[in-house]
């Protein structure tokens, strides 16, 4: 399996999560074909860091998030979390490991059980793991609900449908926090929310991250949102990583043509500059039969013959900045040194 390189992986004692050559494939019925959802990506996340995963629908960003949780298990590759190889774990050990990483989903309303009281929903993980006495559990749940801005008394009496979308997302966040995880994977947590509420939830995540010393993986398709919350961003396209960079660098000097496309697609709230032209035509091709070479070549404005035959590897173009492109818009470091 052709990987997209590992030049960007860091050798640090603070690495909390390290993914290597992660491959996730799904069979297509009994046709013998398969969906190449994630095709050999490598990533690492340091303690206390926020990693943003960005890309269009079908680029494999959500599948990557789920594969880290081993839901479902990746086809191949390794996922090391807090020094443990998750792909080898089974049964109780796996369940135990999952308490250390939690997930928040896109649709806040359907990710909460509609029949139960909100307080019970948040308490359930503690009950399952029999953490503390009844009293301690109640105290913990109440303090976390306060923390996310939900009135515990109201949460004790009300069901999810009595809360707004933004409040339901706060409840999901509270539920993800009760087991004191070290890693939270946020899968498009603000895409379904209004801009005003989106800002509230993003601010809340930043506050909680600082207070609980969390590490976040933030998955979204909106680069402006991802840039705001992330320290480091990985841009994905059709199951591969195109570019990895600190988020400010990614915006200031995008090296991959696809990153530029994503940046140009964001609507700017200013009529003077908003006379945009369509940044890119068409949609990503099917991940069942991905194009050979660089997977972005059919839509890339700079594609040459080599892009159609040879897959680019990730290589450095700056401090912590890596790109998988034969003709990046920023000169690669090794060429500049010559």
């Amino acid at each position, binding site marked *: 399996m052709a990987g997209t390189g590992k030049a960007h992986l860091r050798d640090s004692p603070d690495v909390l999560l390290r993914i290597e050559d992660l491959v996730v494939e799904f069979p297509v019925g009994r046709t013998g074909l398969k969906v190449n959802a994630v095709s050999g990506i490598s990533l690492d996340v340091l303690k206390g860091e926020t990693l943003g995963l960005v890309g269009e629908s079908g680029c494999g960003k959500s599948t990557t998030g789920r594969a880290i949780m081993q839901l479902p298990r990746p086809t191949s590759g390794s996922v090391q979390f807090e020094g443990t190889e998750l792909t080898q774990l089974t049964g109780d050990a796996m369940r135990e490991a999952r308490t250390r990483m939690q997930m928040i989903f896109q649709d806040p309303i359907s990710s909460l059980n509609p029949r139960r009281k909100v307080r019970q929903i948040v308490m359930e993980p503690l009950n399952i793991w029999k953490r503390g006495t009844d009293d301690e559990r109640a105290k913990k749940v109440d303090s976390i609900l306060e923390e996310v801005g939900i009135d515990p008394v109201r949460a004790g009496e009300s069901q999810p449908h009595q809360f707004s979308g933004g409040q339901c997302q706060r409840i999901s966040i509270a539920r993800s926090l009760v087991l004191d995880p070290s890693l939270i994977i946020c899968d498009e947590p603000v895409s379904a929310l209004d*801009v005003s509420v989106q800002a509230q939830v993003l601010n809340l995540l930043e506050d909680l991250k600082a207070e609980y010393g969390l590490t976040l993986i933030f998955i979204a398709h909106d680069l*402006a949102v991802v840039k705001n919350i992330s320290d480091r961003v990985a841009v994905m396209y059709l199951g591969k990583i195109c570019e990895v960079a600190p988020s400010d660098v990614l915006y200031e000097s995008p090296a991959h043509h696809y990153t530029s496309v994503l940046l*140009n697609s964001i609507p700017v709230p200013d009529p003077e500059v908003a006379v945009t032209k369509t940044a890119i035509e068409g949609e990503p091709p099917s991940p069942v039969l991905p194009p050979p070479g660089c997977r972005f070549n059919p839509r890339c404005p700079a594609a040459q013959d080599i892009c159609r035959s040879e897959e680019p590897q990730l290589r450095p173009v700056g401090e912590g900045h890596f790109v998988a492109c034969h003709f990046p818009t920023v000169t690669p470091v090794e060429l500049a040194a010559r």
Partner: protein
Amino acid sequence: MSDLIQASSRDIDGPLLELTDVTTHFKTARGLVRAVDGVSFTLDRGKALGIVGESGSGKTILSRSIMGLLPPRGTVRGGSIKFEGREIGNLGRKEMRSVWGKEMAMIFQDPMTSLNPVMKIGRQIAEPLQIHLGMTKQNAWATAERLLQDVRIPEPKRRLEQYPHEMSGGMRQRIMIAIALACGPTALFADEPTTALDVTVQAQILDLLGEQRRDRNMSLVLVTHDLGVVAGHTDVIAVMYGGKLVEKASTKGLFANMKMPYTEALLNSIPKLEDRSHTRLSAIAGRPPDLVNPPKGCRFAPRCPYAQPKCQTEEPPLVPTAEDPNHLYACWYPVGSPENAEIKVRLAASKGALAAAAGGN
């Protein structure tokens, strides 16, 4: 016969759409929900209007009130809606049928559920052509193919024979647009047409809507919560809050000279690409008002950083700015006014005092 009446009462020179004091209230067990509460504006032919506001601001109900797409039970409607000079606010569903498609069409947020999953795309586009325009089946299918070309769908002939599940979300939204355009409407309503789509596809769909509007000299009403979406794609913007129109201006005028603190707050809550990462976002605290018991005075006052005692008791009227008679706003202490500047200074001072007190401890 009905065509005759329409033709005689048609007002070609006036505005395409004229709303006067439109109200839409719903009877519920909790009481009367004032979803749209006295909205007036006009929309000219061929122009694009953006209706902006949070969930629960009444923007969707307003556009559905104009389209006549509200449940008949428990809905209390008031005011006047004139389309080409003809009153349509009091028409029933049966009478609206002649308006839908040919005069006004609508596309919705969720392209996944707006199409019939068990009907071929071709039939879904061709059927209204046969019913409304009396085309033969063959003609209708040929027109459907041309419509798919117009909305930039590759291989239109093959797509006509497919079912919705065989297409991506962006593709389906294009098909919704093709269906909406099929009978050549004078006005197209798009309710959050790109919210469910990727940013790249969103840009494509917005461009497509703008291009079709210009080609067909059609009016477009774009309903969204994102000021970024309307900035580049509308001529006029109406901002709604709590069922009321709180600011209306030309798109350029609005962004150059924002008056309503709510509009300013909406704009500031959008994360900006130019800002460093981890820049704190200015969220709007609290939630939109309960429309059963809306707050007295200005409805935005409970969440407004500049709110004064007057805002809590007296409702501000919709007034024009000094510079532009077409720029309307409803605020006692508008952004940019000397009174507002004074409040800003006081807010900054008290914040500074708080910080100093906290630092002293």
